[in-house]
């Protein structure tokens, strides 16, 4: 049935009604998840991921301690119910380990680890729903959760998947598109425009690569705006909430407090 759907039809529509350069709906929920220091639930279309960040805290074992910076530990778990077909994946599944390693290496240059020597930052990523672009969602979610946890970052890390249908580039692929097209996922730092991750599992023509990369960088900026908005909104809610809890406290103080 899958192959029965046209990925990009002659009139420029994708199978879900989007056009080439339209990203899927993004849903961001930054509310507190029980014991985590910072967490985020993010959805790109139907792909949904919950990221919880704990730390920085003391490393569990000596072997994981690094004397001059914090150790980043990423654990990824894919829920058995995340796909249509129920399928339990072990934690040591090669693909899961690989994805966790990709997330870790993406954030190593982003997190200011040198501020927390001999400590550990745990990032728990839980994939709740999958519909293409899982890695992209994980990375964006991790960025948000880290910010939510108050861990100092150099920049946002914004990830996006793009693919090529013949010569037409497509952004933010759904599962259906991912199965059909050569694609790559990149993570970029919007302030500097640097790229911290490029992964490709399919063969992509070298002529297409440059075009896709440029496009993905632009899409990264769009994502950045969206994520910034969500953070801003969350902060305002928090501030507003504080006002209610401590009625005597002046507005300037709250602002100051937040800045601190």
């Amino acid at each position: 049935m899958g192959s029965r759907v046209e990925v990009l039809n002659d009139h420029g529509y994708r199978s879900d009604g989007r056009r080439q350069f339209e990203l899927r709906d993004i849903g961001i929920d930054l509310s507190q998840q029980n014991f985590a220091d910072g967490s985020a639930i993010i959805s790109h279309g139907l792909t949904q991921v919950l990221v919880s960040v704990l730390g920085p805290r003391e490393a569990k074992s000596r072997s994981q301690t690094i004397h001059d910076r914090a150790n980043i530990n990423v654990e990824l778990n894919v829920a058995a119910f995340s796909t249509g077909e129920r399928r339990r994946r072990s934690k040591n599944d090669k693909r899961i380990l690989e994805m966790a390693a990709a997330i870790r290496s993406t954030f190593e240059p982003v997190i200011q680890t040198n501020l927390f020597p001999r400590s550990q930052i745990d990032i728990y990523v839980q994939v709740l729903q999958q519909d293409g672009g899982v890695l992209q969602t994980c990375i964006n979610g991790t960025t948000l959760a880290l910010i939510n946890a108050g861990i100092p970052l150099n920049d946002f890390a914004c990830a996006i998947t793009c693919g090529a249908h013949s010569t037409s580039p497509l952004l933010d692929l759904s599962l259906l598109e991912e199965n059909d097209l050569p694609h790559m996922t990149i993570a970029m730092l919007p302030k500097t425009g640097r790229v911290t991750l490029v992964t490709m599992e399919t063969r992509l023509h070298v002529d297409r690569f440059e075009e896709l990369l440029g496009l993905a960088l632009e899409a990264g900026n769009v994502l950045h705006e969206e994520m910034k908005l969500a953070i801003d909104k969350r902060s305002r809610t928090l501030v507003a909430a504080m006002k209610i809890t401590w009625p005597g406290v002046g507005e300037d103080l709250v602002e100051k407090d937040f800045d601190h």
Partner: protein
Amino acid sequence: MQAITIRKRPTEEAIVTHRKFFKKTVRGMVIKVLRERYLRDDVGCGIQGCRLCKGFPLMNGEFTTLPPDGDVDHPAFPTGHFLLPDTNVFLSQMDLLESALFKPPVILLQTVLEEVRHRSLPLFNRLKALTKSDEKRVWVFYNEYRSETAVIREDNETPNDRNDRGIRTATSWYSAHLSLSQGHIRSSSQKKKPSVILLTEDAANRKKAETQGIVTMSVRHYVEGMKEDEKKPQLLDLLAAVSEEIEPTRASAAVTGAKSALYPDYLPTATLLAGIKSGDLHQGHFNANQYNYLEGEVSTPAFSKPILLQGRENMNRAVQSDIVVVEVFPETEWSAPADEVVDQDSTLRNDDAESSADERDEDETNDEVLNRERRLFAKEQKAKHRKAKERQPTGKVVGIIKRNWRAYVCHIDSTSLTSSNLTSLSLQTVFATPVSRLLPRIRLRTRQAPSLLGQKILVTVDRWEVTSRYPEGHFVRALGKAESKEAEQESLLLEFEVPYRPFGRAVLDCLPKEGDSWVVPPKTSGSNEWQGREDLRNLIICSIDPPNCQDIDDALHARPLPNGNIEAGVHIADVSNFVLPETPMDNEAASRGTTVYLVDKRIDMLPSLLGTNLCSLRPFVERLAFSAIWEMTPDADIINVRFTKSVIASKAAFTYEEAQMRKDDPHMQDELTQSIRLLNQLAQKLKARRMAAGALNLASPEVKIHLDSSESSDPIDVEQKELRETNSLVEEFMLLANVSVAQKIQEAFPQTAVLRRHMPPPKTNFEKLQDLLLKRKGLKLEISSSGALAASLDQCLDPKEPAFNTLVRIMATRCMLSAEYFCSGMVSRDTFGHYGLASSIYTHFTSPIRRYADVLAHRQLAAAIGYTPLHASLHSKQYVARVVDVVNRRHRMAQMAGRASVEFYVGLALKHRNERETLPATEEAFVIRAFRNGLGVFVSKLGLEGLVMFKRDIQFDAENYMITVPGAQDTTIAVFDKVVVRIEVEKDKNTQRGRVKMTLVHPVDSSSI
């Protein structure tokens, strides 16, 4: 470039925007699939100058196609109208919509488009072509993406009902949209807005639509209401007959658990074997009918006529050359072969590669195809009663003893592809159409389908399930671009199973160490080579062969003897001196069986060092030979014959033409010329005697391809082979040598002699030809013996048509069995005869370089004259029978490969000729068969057989083998009539196969019928 945006999807819309459905996997698990859908407001209506849709994004090169007022030609809608057909209209009336005469602007809904795609990909591809064509005004409206027209499936609603509702919603939207967009501007002119008409065949849908105030009509109603002009009747003709109650569009039925079986199961092997033993069941090779893919035959010894298998179910998954077991129906159900050409490609054009492989079982397309086939089948059944005389045993396949599946050369059917996008990596189920018309289409799953389009590929068949209409196979490798010479050549070799790999190390090690510097050693008493050999170096020997012949395996001489008699000798290359039994070279040659000659390539049986050098009886060098020497009276009576190994030195290598000229030139009086004349005299007498004994003079359509140059091998032209006296000279002496050798080895080794025979054809084979000749020409064909046949063939003359006789000979040849090698101990003595040559015994001895049977005959003859002892293997009947079986098969295959190669080059030559000249080639042709919807014709000048197909039925008189083409003056064409055909080479759209297309030019032009 367009800006990158994020498509927002309000959460409250989720119910509309999520598409949820269940699908069943191959393993039977049910999976829930959730898909997103983004609704938008910028989906354009496609009407030119629409105020509301101005500025909506369009793809490059796209523009709004619908005229603002729609079509104003229909009398029922003076204010103009647009058509909005539903899915069934496209599924059943595609021909109408494709017609250039059908002009109204069409709104094609996405719902409809997707449904068509789901039902039949080929139809979908036609529809897509329609939307792109310049003459048509078709606008695709993405109603499922437009927020106002998107519908969701409600509880208890079938997908079909949901789609119908979606179509109605979109129709109402269009009506409203039209009044909104035009209302304000046009209000001053008081012009009424054009209407949108929902075209549907579904009465229930029409009723529902009417209650919603939608204008709706059936297609027939619409076309009937059209303006009376010359195109209306034509459009009415294009209307497909649709029964009133229409089948639901989509699988409304719940997904059934198992797929329904299309074929009956095979019986268990034990039952089959028992049945064969008791005579209830019959075993034989399955032969598909190349004109009708729904028919096949199985020849069995129990019946004089082959058993006919009609229809898919009765053929029950048998593939060409499988060994099948057949159950014969009672005689009342016997039937006659159909008289119609049923082309698989066109009948099954709209069949879907995926439909039955689909995880969601959808059987409607299947039903559709089955219905169509059933209709064809029913037509045949009607004919059954009429032709009682032609009836033959009819049955069905109940089991398969052995599948003879191999790798088949195929093309990918481009219309079966879901995506022809080159970057697409998705797994696709596609059809591969075999090059051979005898084979069914093969379904295969591949990830590289788009890149295989237009290539020749090799596909093996893996299995054929009862639930699947087509056999399933897998891709082996690509051979190259279709129509390129390399790919075609390799595909020919593969198709006919010719082993064409270069010779291996072990084989080459068996060659003499000296290589091409090998010479006959000087004659000394101690020399091995000279032992037992006669020195014939001083004889005036020459060879006569076709031009450019490199493997010269025979040479001749003749000289008068002092006693007034004549000594004539045939000298054959002594291959058995080099190819010793049980060596790798011998085994390889035995498995190759024969050298295969293609137009531009020769695949040798023996390494070329032997074939074209050491064994080849080239002039001016000493060569080893095996000689047969006769002493004959001047009247060509044989006084005695002796065989000897010898050493010869040929004095000249002539072509047929050179030898002929030499013989005819009275100034040439040298010994060589004298000897040719002597040979010629004898040959003429031998031939006369042979003819008197009843030998047949058969004809086969042999043509010669002129190649541009040896490098480019582009064919320039085709001509018929010319036959000269010298051809017959060589032929007569070769026949004589073969017969003499056959007698000798049969005497010496009555159990294991390798002989060749040609069985007399069964009388029934000639029935049709006899009937034809009698009815059409009033000629009688006498077939009681080969002599009688030869005599009556000579009487088959048409004074106005000299070529007629040749045609009859060709047709008679086709009625005969083919000659075969056999081991003398395996069959009874009275079946040794060679029917065509009217000889009681025969073998092949004269071409050991290119035929393996001759090598065996050489060994046996050498042993018979006491030159060497016979190798142990040749004492075993079983061994000889086995080798001979292989050689027979290879021989048959080589002939077919050669013929196919010629056919391919004739095609190429025609194509080149058509490119050079502006008008397509026209040639005279004879009608050789008549069908209900076509004619089989034979173009003797090109040796080309072809089919003239008529699109619609014409009057067909099976009894008299003629058709009548209705027209201003009825024209009748019958078998044996001379017609003129236009020959074009067209590329089959689906298969990329270049095929010869013939159309009648005279007496009627068939391009319009």
